């Protein structure tokens, strides 16, 4: 768990065929932090700041995976995920829900909305990376 012992990651050049990850988070610092790390880890990354933008980007870019923060202004993460999962174009895209809310109800609500995984913040970039890797592998 401690990052201290984790070996330093090597920067990987982004391949054209690298999976595209859509990171949705209204808090820019977190969103950019994950984007930066995922890019550093060899993924293509797209960003969205809210639910509507997330839907637009998802339809437009057809990402390989979506990291969805649930607390979003306007259309929130649950609703956005529900709409994505309701649409044939986006139904197959795995969605990893991220939330700062640690209460049990959130996890259940996320799964009901169609999320494929659920991670409670704080979530270190490595942890997210591991989850993404395991998702894309499956």
């Amino acid at each position: 768990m401690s990052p201290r012992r984790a070996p330093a990651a090597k920067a990987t050049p982004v391949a054209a065929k690298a999976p595209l990850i859509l990171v949705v988070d209204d808090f820019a610092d977190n969103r950019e932090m994950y984007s930066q790390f995922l890019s550093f880890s060899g993924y293509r990354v797209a960003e969205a700041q809210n639910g509507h933008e997330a839907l637009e980007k998802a339809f437009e870019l057809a990402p390989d995976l979506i990291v969805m923060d649930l607390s979003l202004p306007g259309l929130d993460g649950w609703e956005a995920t529900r709409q994505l999962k309701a649409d044939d174009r986006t139904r197959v895209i795995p969605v990893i829900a991220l939330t700062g809310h640690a209460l049990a109800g959130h996890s259940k609500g996320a799964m009901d909305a169609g999320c494929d995984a659920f991670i409670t913040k704080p979530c270190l970039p490595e942890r997210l990376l591991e989850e993404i890797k395991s998702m894309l592998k499956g």
Partner: protein
Amino acid sequence: MSRHAALRTVVRRRAKVDAADRLKLAEALLGTDDLATCAQRALDWLGRAAGATRGLCLVGPPDTPTVLEPIATLGVRGPRVQSFTLDLEAHDDPLVAASIGLGASIFGRNGRPAPRTPLESGRFIATPLHARQTLEEYPVGLLLVAPSDPDVEAEAKWVAGLLGPRLTALRAAQRRQEGERRILRERTLLYNIINAVSDPILLTDTEGRITVANARAEALLSAGDDEGRRRAIALNNMLFSSALTRRAIEGAEPWRHELLLVDPVDGSDLLFELLSTVTVDPREGTGIVSILRNVTDLRRATQEIEENYRKLRLAEADARAERDRLDLIIDSVADPILVTDPNANIVMMNAPAERLFTADPAAGAEARRTVQANDAHFSSFVSNLFFEPGAMRRSGSIGLVDPRTGAPLPVEAISGKIVSEHGEVTAIVTILHDRTEELERARLYEELKRASSELEQKVREATAELTRQNELLRRSHFEIEQASAAKSQFLANMSHEFRTPLNAILGYTSMLLKGVTGELTPHQRRNLERVDSNGHHLLAIINDILDISRIEAGKMPLTLTQFDLKDLVAEVLAEVEPIISRSQLAVTSQLAGDVPLLKTDRQKIKQIVINFLTNAIKFTPQGSVEVRAGYMPDMDHIAVSVADTGIGISPEDRERIFEDFRQADNSPTREYTGAGLGLAICRRLAGMLDGAITLDSEVGRGSTFTLSVPREVKRA
């Protein structure tokens, strides 16, 4: 002349008076007991021995000592002597003066006139006769001697000295004899009187001996001739003494007692009334006078009268008993019973009826009016029965009033006709039954019904109030729940608000340390590591606070699974391995072989054990830490302990460390970091699993924390 010659002769003879003559006179005087003889011998001696020619001796009679009379004469006699008396009370008489003087008085000499005396001659000597030569009020007598002659004078004096005492002595003896005769006469009279009394009279001394008894008493109590008489008298004596003894004991006076004696003559019983009185006489001493009155006949008559009276009473009692029995039966009936004649007059009633229909003379006008009213009501009721020729009975209610209390007395009356053989109504018997209780019962029943309905109403009201209160309570409970939910929501939000920036801090730090933005200098790396370390600490605190608020809000769900404790311990050791390897401590585990599978919340057990282990490592500078697990079959509990050889916890701190935000050393400069929420959470988690945490510790030697939980959580 011859007289002169005689005088001379006397003188001569006088010279011859010698001691023998005097002795002769003295003997003669002592030799007679009679006063007159004595006086005569003295005069004769004076005539013979002293030559006295005439003489007279005067002595007072025994009963009148103030009048002197002649008792002896010498040479004089006749009526003058017979009629001569000397009254000693006549003080102007010269003879009286001579009588009460001491010495002899000579009259008719030297021109002193002589008083008239039977002696005739002008000269004589008067010598008083005394008992002794002392002055007494009255002399016993007076000695007159003539003619006057010096010798005769002297001899007369000598004779008077001899005669005076002798006469006095004789007079005294005479008087004594007189007294004794009188006493004897009185005594005889007394005896005659006592004997004449038909009742026995006795005088007894204090010893009970009979002193005086009259003839009747003697007949009863003195020894008789034959045997039967003696026995009867002995018995009588015994009975009498016994009665007297009782009287002495009881000591009342006068004392009256019945005494039964035996007639010594015919042996029949004689009943006496014994009346005795104590007499106290200074000379005779104390005695008891007893009078026995024969009351035998009186008693017999009395007894007969009593017996007749008793028979009469018995006959009367028999006659009355029959009636009383009937009365008793009627009176013992608590209900009033009345018998009325055909004119509706009451002829008989029992006691309860009397209370209603007769007025106590002492009662007031009010009570009398009440009785009259009762009577009127009753008569009217009974009369109605007479007007119904065919009816034999009648019953109905009458409103009477109790005369004693004035309280209304509702009664149920039942009247029945009593018909003679000839078919005419002779009387009507009526029984009244008090309906007060019956009515009271009915009233009480009504009251009870009313009270019951009131109670019902009250219960309804109370129930409604309770419902209202329950509603209020429910609402208030709901409000509390809402408040609680709001608090939980607030904490959740706070948690979220903390986590979002912390996510960025930890994320960027992690990226920097991973070299995402290029290699770091050792100094930069050290500083970043501190940021990272503190960020994680902050996160741990936030997680702990969230845990506590979840548990308190009841939002910490239990997830029950079945698992092996051995696996869990291995997992914990693996997870804590990074800390263990940094600590240089020997961390071992010892698990009993018989620990069965558990069914409880695995995550929570794990959290507790991790907490125990990280604490043990943190507070153990050197030595060892051991994780032990065992099963207690008697309680069906499992126990997981973590024992260290660390700094230990003092007894006063052992409880405090389980409180929120506590460490044993709570000072700002404390040596060990940590929020101090770990054990507080562990204790709450153990409680959720129906378990407990115990601590055994010694300062400087180490501590052992033990979690004990049921093998299987019973509730969901």
